[in-house]
């Protein structure tokens, strides 16, 4: 099902890139992204059935869920608005790249039940909300790049950056900070222990907090906003991948 989902994205990406090159607004096909999104969810449900636990406790499953979340957001957005183009293409491309990564030997895909520390409902809620929040950050990231690359439509992209962060931020806060802390309290006896994973999640949160607290300020120009949004997502990406593979963390076992 992952293979089908990945393959289904290719014609969509080609279609959107042609539209971008021709600078045309053609038929809105983004709602079709709901198909691969649903297929990925079904794959996760099947895995969950096999391991007798919701499949969201390792990097492979996290990538599937994250990709699915991005595609759901794009698909639902496609149902409500005709404006697609760069943002849809870029976000779908990120989802596509993550799906390709799942076939990497660095990311084991064996169906294994989780170790004891990961057998927690709080962990599931923590991961679910975190990745849904981050999926919105992907949209802000792509919108920020689009804003930097385009000379027109900056107001549109600025609004998109702010709106996507406005939606993603509370979801991410709930997932990464609040539910993550509660899980840590049950698993390790401490809400917060400045573990590198926790620390980088907090840094991600701080960046988006700064954006939301300064969005009304004239000093936050479109360019500055775009760069901070880009940095915010890159930090979020590092929190997900970089910490697992580059730093010594309690979360390192989730690979």
């Amino acid at each position: 099902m992952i293979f089908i989902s990945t393959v289904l994205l290719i014609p969509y990406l080609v279609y959107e890139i042609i539209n971008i090159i021709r600078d045309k607004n053609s038929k809105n096909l983004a709602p079709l992204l709901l198909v691969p999104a649903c297929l990925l969810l079904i794959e996760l449900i099947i895995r969950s059935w096999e391991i007798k636990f919701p499949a969201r406790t390792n990097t492979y499953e996290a990538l599937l869920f994250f990709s699915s979340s991005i595609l759901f957001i794009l698909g639902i957005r496609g149902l409500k608005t005709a404006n697609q183009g760069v943002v849809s293409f870029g976000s779908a491309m990120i989802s596509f790249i993550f799906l390709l990564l799942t076939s990497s030997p660095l990311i084991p895909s064996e169906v294994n039940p989780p170790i004891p520390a990961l057998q927690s409902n709080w962990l599931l809620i923590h991961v679910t909300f975190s990745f849904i929040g981050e999926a919105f950050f992907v949209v802000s990231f792509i919108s920020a790049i689009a804003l930097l690359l385009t000379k027109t439509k900056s107001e549109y992209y600025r609004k998109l950056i702010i709106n996507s962060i406005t939606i993603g931020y509370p979801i991410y806060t709930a997932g990464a900070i609040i539910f993550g802390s509660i899980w840590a309290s049950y698993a390790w006896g401490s809400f917060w222990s400045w573990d590198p994973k926790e620390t980088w999640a907090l840094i991600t949160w701080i960046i988006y907090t700064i954006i939301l607290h300064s969005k009304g300020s004239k000093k936050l120009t479109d360019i500055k906003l775009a760069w901070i949004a880009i940095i915010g997502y890159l930090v979020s990406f590092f929190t997900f991948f970089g910490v697992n593979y580059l730093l010594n963390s309690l979360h390192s076992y989730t690979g």
Partner: protein
Amino acid sequence: MIKENKLFKILTSVKLAIILLISLGLLAAISTLMPLGQLENFFSSALFITLMFLFFINLSLCTIKRIYRELVGIIEIKVGVDLIHTGLMLLILSSTINAITQEEYDTLMNNGDVEYIENFYLKLDEFNYYTYSDGKAADWVSHITILDLNGAEIVKEVVIEVNKPYRFGDYRIFQKSFTKLDGVKLSDKDGKEITLYPNYEIFISNMIYQFLNVDGLSAMFKITDEENNIQYSEYKLGSEIEGLKLVDRETKLLSGIYVKKEPVYVVQYISLLILLLGFSITYIDKFRNMEVL
């Protein structure tokens, strides 16, 4: 209306909040390059504590100022925002109090062991280690009894497992880990057996034999004679050490129990709840009024 002096204006400015957040973020990023064992020193450092304290002051004064302005009608009342900031204040305060007042006990226990924990004793009745069909760890579970200082049972048949700690007053008792200890069993001519685990010593023929480890079918001993001369010897299982036969290797599982006393633990939970409520109130309204992405 309160007239704000310059210092108050600075302390309640969003600009200061942003500067402090950036500083804390940068410091936190640097901390992740340090070895895990040095983190406590880093986050106890004067610089970090000062920045956190300033942030707390800024957050608190901003929140109080905001609520005052809402009450006198200068600005629109936003309950959600107030709850978020109040929740954050409470979280920082309760976490600080916990960090100062908490007590921790970390121990490895074998079945039958009794451990003293300040106001009570903890007895490990049974430790079980469960695996999946492929041998990987599935769960580790300890059955414990809590005794008072006179040895009388207060609570018995308490089951603790990973992610499911037991709450006993201000204490929480966690199943933190387990460890396997590999030892060797020795038998004398009469069939009496003794098991040695790492660093256990026996006295044979005026020499101290300290068991170090067992690797495969070989056991390593450190031998100290009467003149404190030391040598290391390896013995195969089945061989003899001065009339004692090395019968077999034996593994015991030790339960890693972690006990933590947190006087304001509940306040931390309440503050997280307040934060969650604040976010829900703030953002559900925003989502409804927002144009689609």
